[in-house]
Structure formats: C-alpha cells, structure tokens
C-alpha cells in the first residue's frame, strides 16, 4: 500500500481558497490581503517542509482525489523532486509577498494583485504535485493566465505590449502541450502519468514518443524561455511590477518549463541519448546567447531578464548531462537561481522604488544612500557570477565538474566562458548602479521601508549560506533525494501503480 498523505492537495487548495477569500473580503481594508497572503504562503512553506520530511521517512506518496482508484481518478504524487520544487516555490513566494507589502503601496487594486498572485502559486503547485497529464495542462494554464494578467498589472503602454506578446507566445506553447497530450491519450487511452508510462513501455514504439516529445519540448521550452523560444521573456519580465518579475524569473519559468520537462520526459516518455544531447545543446545555446545579449543592456531589469535565460541554460545543461551529479547540480542551481534572481529583481525594484529609474546610466553611487539594498545586490550579483563562497559558485562548479566527468569538455569550457562573461555584466550593475560618486540628483534618496529590507536581507542571507546545503546531512535531505527521482525515471510509474 502506497503511503498517502492529506497534505498533498492542500498545496493547491489553500492558495486557491486564499485567493478567493481575498477577492471576497479584501477590497476595503489593507490588512486582510496582506495578512492573508503572508499566512497562506507561510503555511505553504510549513507544508512543504512536512512534505520533504515525510518523503525522506516513507518514500513516494500518492493522493487519490475523491478516493477514486488510480488510473481513473486524478492522482497527486509526492516524490523527492516534487517536495524540493514545492519548497522552492513556497519560499520564494513568501519572501516576495513580504517585499510587496510595502512595494505595492503605490498601485491601486492591491487585492487583485494578491488574488492573482495566489492563483499563480496555486497553478504552479498544481503543476508540481499532479500525476495526471491533463491536470498538468489545466494547472499550467491557471498559472499562465494569472501571470499574463500580472505582467499587464500596471496597464501602461509597455506593460500591455509585453503582456500581449507573452500571452500569445504562452498560449501557443500551451496549445503544443495540449496537442501532445491529446496525441498521447489517443495512443495510450489513459491520462494518468504512471499508467501512460507503462502503456508506452509495453507498446515499445518510439515513434509516438518521438513526435509527442518534440511537441512537448516545444511547448515547455516556450514556457521556460530556452533560446530559440526566448523572445517574450526580456519584454515580459521587466515590464511586470518588481515582485512579479521576481516570481516569474525566480520560479514560474522553472515550475512550468524546467520542472514540466523533467517530469514529462524522465517519468513518462523516457529519455533517449538524443534527447539528452538536445537538452544539453539547448542549454549551452541559451547560456551563451543569454549572456551575450545581457552584456549590451542598460536597463537593469532587462539585463536581469537576459541573465535568467542564460542561467536556465545552465540548469538544462546539468539535466542533460544525465549523471547523478549532473542532476543534483542542476537542482541546486535551480534553487540558487530562484533565490538570487528573486533577490536581484527585488533589489532592482527597491532601486526603482527609491529613485524611479531603472536605467543604469542614470544611476550612480546609490550604495552610499541605500546601504542594505546595495549589500544585498552585491551578494546576489556575486552569487550569479559564481564567486566563492556564494551559493551560485558551488552549483556552477558542480555543473562544470559533472560535464567534465561525463566527457563533455566543450560544454564545460563554454560554461566557464559564459560564467566569466556573467561576471562582467554583474560588475556593470555594481559599478554603474551602486559604486562610484553619488550624483546630486540622488542626494535625497532614502533607503526603502523595513519590510522590503527584511525580504532582501533574508534572500541575501540564503545566497551567502546556500553553499552549506552541500554539507553531508543537508545534501541528503534537500538535494540527493530530489535528484534520485531522475535516476528512478520511468520506473517510478510501476512503483506508483504497483502500490495502489
């Protein structure tokens, strides 16, 4: 009997209920939306820690919705990768909410912001926990539609344009995913991921898996902004309000893109050497194109958006390498990227809050007036560039080591070069933005409010101490058991169904 746990559906139900409760009650007051959002996301962190603990004690959990038996009803699955992703999403969501309590003061319609935000979190958690193909698509769309609306939240010219572009690209991506799911359903007559994996193994035909694999990869790569499909990201992410940029770059592209690719290919379709090679090539191309385009940006948030594309490339490379070390490094980098990219976007939001600009040429010497923001940005930048002892260094090092061990020397060299170029663009942020002489027009700039500082400080602390997760005890609990999901691969299916 597979262990079951009532905590799994709560990851979807709690943010959904929170979102609609805010829509119902939160229009007049300020306390209810803020407090409710904090409580919900804080609760999610607690749930995800419980989930991780339960996984390490009892192994894979499933949850049958409405108590329907497995291949017929919708099943939710909790394994190591799921627990890891849930923790990442909840942690970033909580810190971002903490930041936006002060930041969103400027905007009207805060309750709408929190409603959409929690809907997006519910969608992401749904994508992560579900064990059903069509359910994956539904939650994908819930998260995506909420994020389109959040990009357009300010309803200024650029935001609308970026949101339209993002909505068109995102919808096309979803259509590819839906088409592939229909195709798989017509072939296997089931939607349960585990059942589908077994049916595909039994049929033994790789042609359907190949066609649908291409469609799914296209769809999810559009969501993850891997390079040939990246055009929407540098518009959409900078245009959103800063907390949303942090959520989109920090976790949305990973939950909807990278995680979905991992889940679908490693647990359902199965991985061939060609696919691994394709993932690695896509990763390397994203990495280098992203970093080269980031070098010539003057808009702070746009620069960070290109940097996201480049860092997603590292994660894809790590996953494509296919050794246990590669998976672990990729997941560690995924977590680190969530933390430092949220930190950098929130920091750019803090700068925009204080000065009203995000053009690097107009800034200068802000470090003198905004000490904590500047220190937090520094630690985030060092982490993204991979300077020891910041967390980003360890994960990049592990990815490069994994590439060398597996014999992909060229990819390792490109990764090292991209990492150096990364250093040069983050140094530009620090040099033009925070160091140097203070300009007269910024003499009156003041440090941001306490809540924003708290959020930035916590994220910076995680950036600095993140390397400690590699210590033996923490690594086993946090990373290795998540990485093991990949090695289990499609065997997971027989375990899930076998236990039911």
């Amino acid at each position, binding site marked *: 009997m597979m262990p*079951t746990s*009532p905590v799994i*559906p709560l990851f979807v*139900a709690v943010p*959904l*209920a929170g979102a*609609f*409760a805010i*829509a*119902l009650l939160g229009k007049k007051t300020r306390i209810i939306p803020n407090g409710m959002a904090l409580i919900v996301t804080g609760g999610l962190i607690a749930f995800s820690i419980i989930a991780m603990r339960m996984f390490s004690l009892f192994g894979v959990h499933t*949850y*049958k*919705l*409405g*108590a329907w038996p497995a291949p017929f009803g919708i099943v939710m699955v909790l394994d190591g990768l799921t627990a890891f992703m849930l923790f990442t999403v909840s942690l970033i969501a909580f810190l971002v909410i903490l930041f936006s309590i002060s930041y969103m003061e400027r905007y009207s319609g805060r309750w709408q912001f929190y409603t959409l935000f929690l809907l997006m979190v519910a969608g992401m958690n749904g994508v992560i926990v579900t064990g059903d193909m069509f359910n994956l698509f539904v939650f994908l769309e819930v998260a995506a539609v909420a994020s389109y609306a959040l990009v357009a939240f300010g309803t200024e010219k650029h935001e609308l344009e970026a949101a339209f572009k993002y909505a068109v690209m995102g919808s096309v991506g979803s259509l590819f995913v839906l088409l592939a799911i229909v195709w798989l359903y017509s072939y296997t007559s089931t939607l349960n991921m585990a059942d589908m994996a077994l049916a595909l193994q039994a049929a033994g035909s790789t042609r359907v898996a190949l066609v649908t694999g291409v469609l799914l990869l296209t769809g999810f790569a559009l969501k993850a902004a891997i390079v040939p499909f990246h055009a929407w990201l540098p518009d959409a992410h900078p245009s959103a309000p800063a907390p949303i940029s942090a959520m989109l770059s920090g976790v949305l592209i990973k939950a909807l893109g990278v995680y979905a690719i991992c889940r679908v290919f490693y647990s359902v379709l199965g991985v061939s050497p060609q696919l691994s090679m394709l993932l690695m090539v896509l990763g390397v191309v994203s990495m280098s194109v992203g970093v080269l385009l980031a070098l010539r940006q003057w808009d702070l948030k746009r620069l960070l958006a290109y940097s996201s594309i480049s860092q997603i490339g590292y994660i894809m490379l790590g996953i494509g390498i296919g050794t246990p070390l590669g998976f672990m490094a990729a997941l560690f980098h995924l977590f680190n990227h969530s933390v430092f990219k949220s930190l950098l976007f929130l920091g750019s939001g803090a700068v925009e809050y204080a000065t009203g600009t995000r053009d690097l040429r107009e800034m200068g010497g802000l470090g003198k007036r905004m000490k904590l923001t500047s220190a937090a940005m520094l630690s985030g930048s060092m982490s993204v560039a991979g300077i020891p002892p910041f967390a980003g260094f360890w994960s990049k090092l592990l990815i490069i080591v994994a590439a060398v061990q597996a014999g992909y020397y060229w990819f390792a060299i490109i990764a090292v070069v991209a990492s150096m170029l990364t250093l040069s663009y983050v140094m530009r942020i620090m040099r033009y933005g925070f160091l140097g002489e203070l300009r007269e027009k910024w003499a009156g700039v003041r440090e941001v409010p306490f809540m924003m500082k708290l959020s930035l400080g916590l994220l910076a602390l995680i950036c600095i101490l993140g390397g400690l997760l590699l210590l033996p005890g923490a690594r086993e609990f946090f990373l290795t058991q998540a990485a093991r999901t990949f090695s289990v691969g499609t065997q997971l299916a027989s375990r899930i169904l076998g236990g039911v």
Partner: protein
Amino acid sequence: MSKERQPGMTLIVKTVTRLTVGLILLYGIYVVTHGHLTPGGGFAGGVVIALSLVHLMLAFGGDVAFKTLSKSGAAVLEAIGALLFVGIAIIGFGWAGFFFNFLPKGTPFDLFSAGIIPLCNIAISLKVGAGLFSVVIAIVFLRVAGSERE
C-alpha cells in the same frame, strides 16, 4: 416615450426581451440543477444565466442590467462560487479526503441524488454566470470609455 431618454434598443426588442429573459434565466437554472441527470451542468447553465443578463444589458442598456446584478455584486458572487467549490472539496477531508463525495448518493435519475455533484454544479454556475457577465461588461464598458476619450 421619447427615444433620447430611453437607452437601449427599440420597443420591439424590449418587449420581446421582457417576455423571454425570465424564461432564459429559468432554463439556465434548469440546466444547472439537472446537470447530473442530463447533458449540461454548472458551466453550460452558468453560461445561459450569464447570457440572460447580457440579453438584458443589450436590450435595455447597462443601467437596467446593473440594477439586477451590479458589478461589485457580480464579483462577490464569483468569489462566493469559487469558495463554495473549494469548500465542498475541503469538507471531503472529514470523510475519505479531498473532493470525496460524502453525501448519500440516492437513487439514480432522481433530482436529489449523486451526492455533492449538484452542489458543485451550483457553485460552478455561480462562478461562471457572474464571471462571464463581468467579462462582458468589462469589455463593453472598456470600449465605451476608450471611444469617449478620442
């Protein structure tokens, strides 16, 4: 009855609307409540309910339609519908879990049967009806605001 003071369409349309709008609403409610027995259900019925309100708005103009269901009222109903749905799902925890059908199933083909499914249908119809109505008014009145500016 001068035309200027009366927003909306001509007298013929208004009279027909007066006669039909109640029937449309009733049909929507029928589709919702019989969702577990016949084709249809919460979504289809909700759309019909929303269309009856949209019908009212087209024939008589926005003011009359808002007297029936105001914009904020629609938003409240929408949130209540969604909360009801999630609430029904969560109550299932008291029995076997999330979304568990905890009510007695009754005999098939009775109006009061199938456990929580009719309740879910009603919650969905609230959500869809109010939601679709607010989508339509949002788009229509956005356009009005836009064209006034130019």
